[in-house]
């Protein structure tokens, strides 16, 4: 059963609604959202509340629920 979540783009505040299979990995969610917003190649992370979601875990492992709001954040790697 798919889970409906909202993903917020931390760079511009726009939102994306996604239906996720529980077996989808968080890093695939990141990739899908980044592609949707045509983001530059780079590192990104996904958070729910005060928690960084682990890339390799699945939507089910991460405990995502319907109507969760996640945020896609660029991970700055410059020095």
């Amino acid at each position: 059963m798919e889970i409906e979540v909202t993903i917020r783009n931390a760079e511009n505040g726009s939102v994306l609604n996604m239906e996720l299979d529980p077996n989808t990995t968080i890093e695939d969610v990141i990739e899908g959202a980044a592609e949707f917003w045509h983001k530059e190649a780079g590192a990104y992370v996904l958070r729910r509340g005060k928690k960084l979601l682990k890339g390799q875990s699945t939507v089910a492992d991460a405990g995502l629920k319907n109507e969760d709001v996640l945020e896609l954040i660029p991970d700055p790697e410059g020095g």
Partner: protein
Amino acid sequence: MDSIIGSHCLVVGAGALGNETVKNLVLSGVGRITLVDMDHVEMSNLNRCLFFSVADAQGRAAKADMVVHGAARMAPDCELRPVVSRLEDVDLDWSSFDLAFGCLDNIKARLHLNSYSRHHGVPYVDAGTDGSRGKLQVVLGDGPCLQCTMNKSHYQVLERRFSCTGSDFSYYEPPMAAEVTTTATMSSMQVKEGLKILSGREDDCIRHLLFYDAMRNEMQTLEADIDPGCPNHEM
């Protein structure tokens, strides 16, 4: 203060962040600093690097040498050692370090420093910037490391250098140039976290990551978990 004066810090990266971080460390009273960087000064560095000059860029001076030279003028009592090399090519006495600072411009080098620090039990404070955004991560013995918090998007750009210096290597030019105000902010927080560790106040450190967005006036601290599959946490 004695623990800070008596400490030996490793700083890897002598770019914009490294300049600021070494400055902050010497002015905070750190007694010994080893600075590792393989690069030379470029004209494009000069808008955000305290210790670099036009003459340094024209003379292709080593970044580590110039930062040490400038910092020594600020704090003559600090023992400063420049190492002009890549981290993975130099044999360092890790048992002498109390703390490591990552001031790097690419994920691959960060992973090297993360791995060495974990292996040798040296706390690690990493900072990164991109335009008006910054990130800080504090890696302590009982917590997740950098590799635990990375995902596929990091590995896709593993070897890209996220700076706009130099023309003699392949590099990735980010959508926004580095801003010295962001660099200074992130370095200040990076060194503050380091000083907490050196003075035995690890419990007051950021757990585990901090993301900063200067344009939106937002700063958020995020918790992360140890990745059971992370090679740095295997017993």
